């Protein structure tokens, strides 16, 4: 029995709740009928358990805190944050880069692995895409708030105006605006497009007229005709084909935000791939972090199996090794180069006042994921959650190191400064975490958590193989 109910399909999965190395991608006992019933059951259930209500209430409390923090920011200005010369990019940019990286991992799973025709993706792509949507929404808040006069954000759009001015197209910050806007719009459309057949299933499974109307409106009249499937598959493939390069471009441009500035520690050609590696690591970590409880709470053990944990663990390890290489190259190029100020900055990072943050980054992003070399760790839900959480925290520390440490120690010692975040900085950070969790909770309440039409293909393919 799960926390949601006692459906027969759900009960059937009680034998294999614990991930095992021998697990298949989907358990053979599942048919397309039982799978559809299992996936549809939670969203169609009228009353949700206490854990969901309490979690949502907690998350909404943080959303309220975010609203207060943003409201005060609009009234008092960005002086309420800890930023000041020379550290003019504080939590806003740290959190922005952190969130957009988390978002990117979801797109890698949903788009890149679709193009590679990877079977295991079917069970995880909906979770990954939902993470992308809400993480990208959280990320998009920060650059707007950081503008100083957020209500004039539309000045970033290139449009003819009475002032006769145009945006500065040669600045990576404007490239970033275009990239994030494209990414958010494309991710929402990709997400909804991928949901359409499953929303049609929900429409046809629902009994209550109001529920049928709700899912029917979202399903856009999809009926599963041969013609509709034909164009749907082509459209989905096309979207996946452009989402994969888009996500790489988005995070490369985030890297260029830094690399384009003549700031110590930032002005490096390795920043675009370095940021993409970081996005991979934090994205995979967040998918694992969300998949473990969702699997248990919604009774999805037959679809998110030990095989998925095994693969995600390996992906986490691989991306951690890529990021470790980038950390190593950062140290190497600093000392291989002639810039004394860069060397001084690096020594400040590893042995200065804020060195614990640097070493936390190394410990959480480089050393902790090495445990994933062991299969027993990859299949242990508690350890998987713990390591994923460490990586998520480690990636935030990495952004703190990049943003704050470089800005506080400029070329000119007389211009050195310090940075202390204020309570408003922390409120905004935790507020967006609340927004993200609230979004995920609402999504699992209303939408199928696993892509049913893709799981049907997997189940039929497996059934044919074993025939």
């Amino acid at each position: 029995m799960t926390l949601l109910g006692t459906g027969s399909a759900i009960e059937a999965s009680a034998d294999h709740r614990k991930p095992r190395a021998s697990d298949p991608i989907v358990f053979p006992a599942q048919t397309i009928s039982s799978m559809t019933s299992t996936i549809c059951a939670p969203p169609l259930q009228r009353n949700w358990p206490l854990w969901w209500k309490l979690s949502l209430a907690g998350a909404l409390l943080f959303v309220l805190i975010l609203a207060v923090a943003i409201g005060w920011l609009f009234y008092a200005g960005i002086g309420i944050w800890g930023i000041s010369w020379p550290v003019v990019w504080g939590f806003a940019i740290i959190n922005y880069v952190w969130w957009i990286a988390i978002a990117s991992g979801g797109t890698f799973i949903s788009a890149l692995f679709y193009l590679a025709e990877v079977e295991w993706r079917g069970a995880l792509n909906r979770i990954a895409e939902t993470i992308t949507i809400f993480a990208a929404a959280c990320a998009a808040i920060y650059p707007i708030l950081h503008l100083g006069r957020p209500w004039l954000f539309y000045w970033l759009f290139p449009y003819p105006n009475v002032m006769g001015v145009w945006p500065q197209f040669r600045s990576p910050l404007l490239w970033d605006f275009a990239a994030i806007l494209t990414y958010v719009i494309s991710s929402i459309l990709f997400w909804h497009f991928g949901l359409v057949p499953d929303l049609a299933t929900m429409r046809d499974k629902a009994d209550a007229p109001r529920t049928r109307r709700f899912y029917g409106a979202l399903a856009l009249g999809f009926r599963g005709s041969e013609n509709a499937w034909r164009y749907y598959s082509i459209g989905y493939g096309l979207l996946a084909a452009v989402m994969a390069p888009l996500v790489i471009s988005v995070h490369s441009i985030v890297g260029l935000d830094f690399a384009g500035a003549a700031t110590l520690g930032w002005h490096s050609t390795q920043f675009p791939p370095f940021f993409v590696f970081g996005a991979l690591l934090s994205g995979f970590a967040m998918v694992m972090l969300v998949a473990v409880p969702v699997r248990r709470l919604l009774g999805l053990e037959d679809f998110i199996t030990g095989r998925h944990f095994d693969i995600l663990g390996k992906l986490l390890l691989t991306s951690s090794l890529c990021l470790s290489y980038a950390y190593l190259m950062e140290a190497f190029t600093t000392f291989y180069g002639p810039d004394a100020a860069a060397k001084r900055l690096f020594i400040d990072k590893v042995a200065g006042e804020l060195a614990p943050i640097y070493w936390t980054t190394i410990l959480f992003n480089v050393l902790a994921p090495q445990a994933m070399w062991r299969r027993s760790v990859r299949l242990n839900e508690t350890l998987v959650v713990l390591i994923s959480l460490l990586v998520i925290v480690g990636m935030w520390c990495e952004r703190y190191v990049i943003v704050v440490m470089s800005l506080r120690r400029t070329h000119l010692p007389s211009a050195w400064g310090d940075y202390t975040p204020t309570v408003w900085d922390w409120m905004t950070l935790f507020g967006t975490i609340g927004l993200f969790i609230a979004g995920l909770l609402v999504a699992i309440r209303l939408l199928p958590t696993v892509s049913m039409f893709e799981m049907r293909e997997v189940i039929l393919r497996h059934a044919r193989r074993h025939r």
Partner: protein
Amino acid sequence: MKFEAEAPIAPNGLAATFLSEDASLVALANLNAAAVGHARLFSPLPPPGPPKPSRLPAFALLIGLLGAAGAFGLQSYANVVAYPLDIGGRPPFSWPSFIPIAFEAGILAVVLATVVGAGALCGFMRYCDSVDEIRALRDTTIDRWVVVVRAPDSDALARSRSILERCGARAIEEAEL
């Protein structure tokens, strides 16, 4: 005043439910071969086989290239003609720095063109259709395959029924299409 009773509308179609994809595909092929009417398959997952050629990718590419070219042109116009600024001595037509936004605009145009184009071809937003009255169709998005055939006359309708029964249809429903 006397009202004339409306003449009952004779069903002109059939909807046959199948439990397997293979049987539904055989039935569809047989109906098409017998040319008894317009037959359509409704299924819970995409039909097997390689995708048939479509102009949708070419359309999306064209719109994407137009989007990218438009964004590049806009940046060039703004920086060279409308608002030339000397930033660090860089020339007004700094074309390499116009590429990222042109790329993003191209991607956005492809995504919009794909969603609109594929949506139009898939029949998105068509909330009402004559097949909606068929009860069996509610199961096609769950776990059933339904072949719907619209026959021109009663003879074709009878032949369609015979073919569907031969192919192992679990249930056959009459429909007004």
